[in-house]
């Protein structure tokens, strides 16, 4: 790509837009924090504190200053990477989140592998067999996956595969017996237990992971399948497909070598967005499976009104989504020559 003045201008505009969006996001989280029905001073000093202590902390927190000064302070703290202390755990919020994130990433990564690994072939298959029984079955399955309350699916899964059939482990990341047996190196239990060579823990952890990951994956499967089918149909309707077939190219080569090759960029962006979308499902699935990850951390903080932690969690989700959207825009620009 050659750098031109027009290109630079477009880049500057893009950067400006992102900055404004981030600022708006901070205004939003700040507003949520101020609206929360908790007294941040009371939460620090406790119920019994005398008025003098209360007043001191009140001023330390800058609560006596105008709202815009408080916002500027929040902005400054955030930019320096200071997200405050969680009132519930007593730890810095950033440390808390760093500790719970691996569990969620482990869950979401398995889910997206299942979702994309099954969803893309299913979508291609449905597109090739358009309006035939296969297509209708795929359509029903994806609609069901898209309509199910995911926490309910999770519980039905636990009842059937854990309580009735006994095929998988129950809630949590490992059985109580194995809890804390492996030293956390990366925080990813599967990797840690493999490093330690503790295969009992590894298999137990995998056994606990498979059900929540499959159910989380089902939601992204529905989305990925629908999108793949739609992208494939766009390609299959074009004349180059007919040309390829007329020239004697085999059916499989036409589908995978030509049509599929052309939708790869679109698919990458869709999978990236679906990966972020799993955060939403993770909030519910982690609660169902007592999975000690980001979703559960966020929900617990919201239930207890832990202001700093709630604000930071919401901010993080917003930043992740803005980044993912940006990434998918960029991928288009880099890989699709027509947008240059």
């Amino acid at each position, binding site marked *: 790509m050659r750098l031109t003045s027009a290109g630079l201008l477009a880049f500057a505009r893009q950067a400006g837009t992102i900055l404004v969006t981030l600022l*708006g996001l901070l205004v939003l989280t700040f507003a*949520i924090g101020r609206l929360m029905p908790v007294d941040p001073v009371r939460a620090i000093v406790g119920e019994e504190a005398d008025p003098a202590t209360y007043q001191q902390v009140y001023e330390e927190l800058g609560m006596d200053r105008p709202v815009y000064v408080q916002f500027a302070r929040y902005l400054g703290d955030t930019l320096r990477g200071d997200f405050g202390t969680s009132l519930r755990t007593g730890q810095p919020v950033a440390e808390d989140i760093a500790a719970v994130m691996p569990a969620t990433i482990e869950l979401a990564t398995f889910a997206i592998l299942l979702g994309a690994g099954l969803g893309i072939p299913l979508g291609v298959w449905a597109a090739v067999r358009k309006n035939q029984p296969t297509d209708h079955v795929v359509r029903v399955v994806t609609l069901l996956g898209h309509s199910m309350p995911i926490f309910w699916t999770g519980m039905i899964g636990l009842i059937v595969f854990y309580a009735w059939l006994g095929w998988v482990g129950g809630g949590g990341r490992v059985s109580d017996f194995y809890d804390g047996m492996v030293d956390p190196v990366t925080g990813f239990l599967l990797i840690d237990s493999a490093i330690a060579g503790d295969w009992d823990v590894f298999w137990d952890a995998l056994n606990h992971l498979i059900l929540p990951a499959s159910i989380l994956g089902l939601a992204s499967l529905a989305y990925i399948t629908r999108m793949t089918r739609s992208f494939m149909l766009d390609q299959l309707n074009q004349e180059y497909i007919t040309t390829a077939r007329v020239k004697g190219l085999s059916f499989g080569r036409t589908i995978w070598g030509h049509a599929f090759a052309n939708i790869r960029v679109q698919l990458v962006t869709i999978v990236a967005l679906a990966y972020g979308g799993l955060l*939403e499902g993770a909030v519910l699935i982690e609660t169902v499976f007592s999975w000690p990850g980001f979703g559960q951390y966020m929900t617990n903080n919201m239930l207890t009104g832990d202001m700093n932690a709630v604000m930071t969690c919401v901010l993080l*989700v917003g930043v992740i989504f803005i980044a993912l959207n940006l990434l998918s825009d960029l991928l288009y620009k880099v890989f699709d020559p027509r947008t240059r």
Partner: protein
Amino acid sequence: MTAVAMHPPLPSRLAGLRSAADYLGTIVRHLAGNASSLFGLVVISVLIVLAVFAPLIATQDPYLQNLQDVLQPPSWAHFFGTDEVGRDVFSRIVYGSRITLTIIALVAVIVGPIGLAVGTLAGYFGGWFDTVLMRITDIFLSFPSLILSLAFVAALGAGLENAIVAIALTSWPPIARLARAETLTLRGTDYVAAAKLQGASSARIIWKQIVPMCMPSVLVRLTLSMATVILTAAGLGFLGLGAQPPLPEWGAMIAIGRRYMLESWWLVAFPGGAILAVSLAFNLIGDGLRDALDPKQRRGRH
């Protein structure tokens, strides 16, 4: 910058039709002709009948406890079994339909006007005003709806009313986007120019000329988002941030049933089945609506 969108944008081929009522009649006739959207319509009708005639359909008082009859499996006396304090699950689900319907109706009533106002004003006036409103819309769109609703409920306090407000606050951006797009095309039409030449004020043009033309597509888009609204409301209820017990809200019922689910599966299975049925119904109707609106792609995409 858009969030994950299940639905492609709706085409605005609605402009030529005479009135919204006319137009909706055409759409309903089309939906009734398609087996899967007909199923959706039937489920929604059943939901409305259950809600209206709940006292006649329910076999018991949904709040009546009977400690002799706790955690009974489904039987002829209790179609869907009984819960941990002996309440009849079937009757609670029947009454719960009123809550579901209330959520749907209230969210639609709040979201429609907000989305229309933001979208038409931004589209009509354009310039920096448009830019500011669309930036705000983008910020809201950059969140998954459940997480933003969770944040708002955390700010406002748990409860059914606040959950409805929170869901409404997260559901208006797609409507605003749509109304803006329609307004941008309508702004340049001859009849709007004619109204301007006659000396009509901006407020009058927006209210009398533009809003009525946006109505049909906004109504359709609202229907499409109802599946998400129902799942979000149930999710909030499940997490304990939405409707509070003893209200027979389906998500909240599942949250309590969770404690007993390994032995008493019916506490979880039936309320969840009800949520699934309603959200599936809205998705099927949504699919049908897309077909009705865009005959070119009928049975094609999605």
